[in-house]
C-alpha cells in the first residue's frame, strides 16, 4: 500500500481570506486595496445590471422577448467575478450571466436580440473574451478547460473563468472537465453560482454532498463562500486567478446565493417554493447589503446613489430603444450565414434556393 496521493504543495491564497463559514474576514476586506472609486463602481455595476435585468423582464412581459431568465439576487457574483479578472481572461458562461456580459462591455441591447429570437449569437466572443451563452447545462465547462489548457500550451498568462449553476454540478460533463483541469493543471477558475435551485429542484435533491469539497477529489482546492458579498467574490476569484496565473492550476469556488426570481419567465416558482424562503434571502440582498456597507464606510452618499440610479434609468431606456429598433440580418444570412467557414456547394445551393423562394413569395 504505497499509494498516497501526491498532493502538490501549493499556497492557497484564497482560503486564508475567509472564515470557515465562507465570510470574507474583516482583515482581508480591509486589505483588498481597492480605491473608493473602485468600490463605488462595484456598486454602480450591480445597480446597472439589476436595472437591465428588470427592464428585460418588463420587455418579456410586454411580449417583446421570447424568454427572460432573471439573475436577481446574483449580482454580487456577476460583478465581483468580472472585476477580479483581466480583460484578456476569457469567461465561459451558461445562460444566466447577462450581468457578467454587461460588465465585460457587451451591449445589453445586442444581447437581448438573442432572447428576442433575432440572432443566434449577438456578440463576437473574441472582442469581449466572453464565450457565447451555453444552454445545455454544464456543456460549457469542458470548453473553459480546453481553452485554459490551450493558454498553458501557448505559455500565455491569461486564465479562464468557467461558471455554472448548482444543477450543472450533477452533469457528467462537469465532472469530466474538473478532472481534466486537475490532470492538465489548467489555469481555470470554476465558479459555481449555487442559487439553491435548478428550476424546481432544490439543492438537497440535487446532491447529498458538498460541491466545494469535491475539488480535492480532482486534486485542487475548493471553497464555499458567501456569494452575496461582492467583495468576497472579488477576493476569491482574484486569489484563484493569481494562483492559476502563476501556474498552480485550477480552483473551485462555490458561491452561495439565491435565485430571487423565477427560473425564467416560463416558470412558476409558486408551485415548488415558499415565500418564507424567499424572504429569508431578501435580507441578504447583495445590492442592499453592499450599499449599506459603503454608506457605513462613508464611501457613498445619497447623491451618489441617486446619480447611479439615474444612470440605470437612462441605460435601461437606451437598451429598450436600441433593442426595439434592432433589425436583424436578412433570413438567408441568419439561417445559413455562419454555419460553415467553407460552405459546401450543395449548402450554397440550398441557400440560394431559399433566398429565391423568399423573393418569389
Amino acid at each position: 500500500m504505497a499509494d498516497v496521493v501526491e498532493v502538490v504543495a501549493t499556497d492557497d491564497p484564497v482560503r486564508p481570506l475567509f472564515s470557515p463559514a465562507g465570510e470574507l474576514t474583516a482583515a482581508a476586506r480591509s486589505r483588498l486595496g481597492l480605491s473608493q472609486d473602485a468600490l463605488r463602481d462595484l456598486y454602480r455595476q450591480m445597480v446597472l445590471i439589476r436595472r437591465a435585468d428588470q427592464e428585460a423582464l418588463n420587455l418579456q412581459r410586454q411580449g417583446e422577448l421570447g424568454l427572460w431568465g432573471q439573475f436577481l439576487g446574483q449580482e454580487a457574483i456577476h460583478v465581483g467575478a468580472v472585476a477580479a479578472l483581466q480583460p484578456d481572461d476569457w469567461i465561459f458562461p451558461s445562460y444566466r450571466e447577462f450581468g457578467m456580459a454587461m460588465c465585460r462591455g457587451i451591449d445589453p441591447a445586442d444581447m437581448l436580440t438573442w432572447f428576442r429570437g433575432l440572432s443566434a449569437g449577438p456578440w463576437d466572443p473574441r472582442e469581449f473574451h466572453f464565450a457565447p451563452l451555453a444552454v445545455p447545462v454544464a456543456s460549457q465547462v469542458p470548453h473553459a478547460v480546453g481553452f485554459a489548457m490551450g493558454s498553458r500550451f501557448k505559455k500565455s498568462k491569461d486564465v479562464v473563468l468557467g461558471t455554472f449553476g448548482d444543477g450543472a454540478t450533477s452533469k457528467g460533463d462537469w465532472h469530466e472537465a474538473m478532472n481534466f483541469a486537475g490532470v492538465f493543471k489548467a489555469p481555470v477558475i470554476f465558479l459555481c453560482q449555487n442559487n439553491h435551485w435548478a428550476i424546481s429542484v432544490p439543492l438537497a435533491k440535487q446532491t447529498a454532498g458538498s460541491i466545494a469539497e469535491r475539488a480535492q477529489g480532482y486534486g485542487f482546492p475548493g471553497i464555499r463562500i458567501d456569494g452575496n458579498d461582492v467583495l468576497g467574490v472579488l477576493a476569491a476569484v482574484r486569489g484563484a486567478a493569481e494562483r492559476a496565473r502563476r501556474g498552480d492550476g485550477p480552483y473551485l469556488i462555490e458561491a452561495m446565493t439565491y435565485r430571487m426570481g423565477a427560473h425564467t419567465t416560463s416558470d412558476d416558482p409558486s408551485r415548488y417554493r415558499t415565500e418564507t424562503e424567499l424572504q429569508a434571502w431578501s435580507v441578504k440582498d447583495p445590492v442592499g447589503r453592499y450599499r449599506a456597507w459603503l454608506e457605513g464606510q462613508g464611501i457613498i452618499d445619497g447623491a451618489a446613489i441617486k446619480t447611479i440610479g439615474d444612470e440605470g434609468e437612462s441605460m435601461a431606456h437606451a437598451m429598450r430603444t436600441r433593442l426595439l429598433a434592432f433589425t436583424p440580418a436578412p433570413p438567408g444570412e441568419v439561417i445559413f450565414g455562419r454555419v460553415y467557414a467553407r460552405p459546401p456547394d450543395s449548402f450554397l445551393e440550398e441557400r440560394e434556393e431559399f433566398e429565391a423562394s423568399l423573393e418569389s413569395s
Partner: protein
Amino acid sequence: MEAVTMAKAINLSLRDALARDEDVLVFGEDVGALGGVFRITDGLQEAFGEERVFDTPLAESTIIGVAVGLALRGFKPVPEIQFDGFVYSGFDQIVSHVAKYRNRSGMSMPITIRIPFGGHIGAVEHHSESPEAYFTHTAGLKVVAPATPGDAYALLQSAIADPDPVIFFEPKARYYVKEEVDPKREVLIGRARLAREGTGVSVIAYGPTVSVALEAAKAAEKENISLEVIDLRTLSPLDMATIIESLRKTHRAIIVHEAPVFGGFGGEIAARIADDGFDLLEAPVTRVGAMNTPYPPARFEKLYLPDVDRILEAADVALAYG
C-alpha cells in the same frame, strides 16, 4: 369524455398507467412538484407519491441509466427528457444499453422515454430539435410520435405496456390542441393511420407535421387537388403496407418532417417507397423538411420549417410531373 389537450391526454395516460400498474415509475427533471416544464406530469407526484413520481438530479445520461437498472429490477420506467435538445447526453445509454440490453441478457427493457420535440414554440436554441432519425437508425428501439390527443393517450398506453423500449416523441407545438379522447381505443405500435383520404398525392407526416399536412390538404381542395394524408404514428417499425396502399391510389408521395431533410428519416421512407413502390410511382418522391442548418433563432423558425405552401408546391410539382 370532453375534449382535452394533448398535454392533458398524456397526463391522463400516465395517470392511468401509474394507477393500473405499480411498477410504472415516472421521473426526470422537474416532473415532481412542478409537474414538468410543460405540466405533463401535473399532479402525479401528489397522487402517487415521491417513490413513483420523482425529480432527479440534472443528468440525462443517468436518468436513462437508472431507468435501465430499474427495468432490470422489475419496474416499467417512464423517464422524461425535458427537451429534444437535451437527449444527446443520454445517447450512449440509449444506443449502447436501452437498445441492446435485451440482446445480451434476455432481460426486457420496458422503458418509455418521453421526449417533447419539434419547433414552432418560439424558443431559444436546443429547445426545438427533431432528433428522431438518430433513434430510428438504432436497432432495438421502437420510435413513435403521435399527432393528436387521442393517439397520444393510446400510444403512450401501448408504449408503457410494451416490453421493449420505446422512444416517445411528443410534438410540443401540439400540446394545446384539443380533442375528445376515448381511453378505451387502442392504438398499436407499428400501425399508421389514414388521416385524410385523397386521390392525388400521398402526404406522409408524423407528429407536428400531420396538422400542417391536413391544412395543406384543405387548402389544396380549394384548388381541386386531392391530398391523402398519412399519419405514421410509429416511425420504427415503419408501416409500409399503409403507405404502399395509398400509393396505389395516388402514385405520388410527399414526406413532411421538421428535421433537416439531409439524412433525415424521410430518406428512409422515400428510399423504401422508391424501392417497394417503384412501379407505382409516377413522380419522384419529394421530401419537405427543414434546411440543412442548425435550428435558427425563433423569429426565423417559420421560414425554416415545412409549411402549407411548401407542401402545396411539392404537390403541384408531383402532379405536373411526367
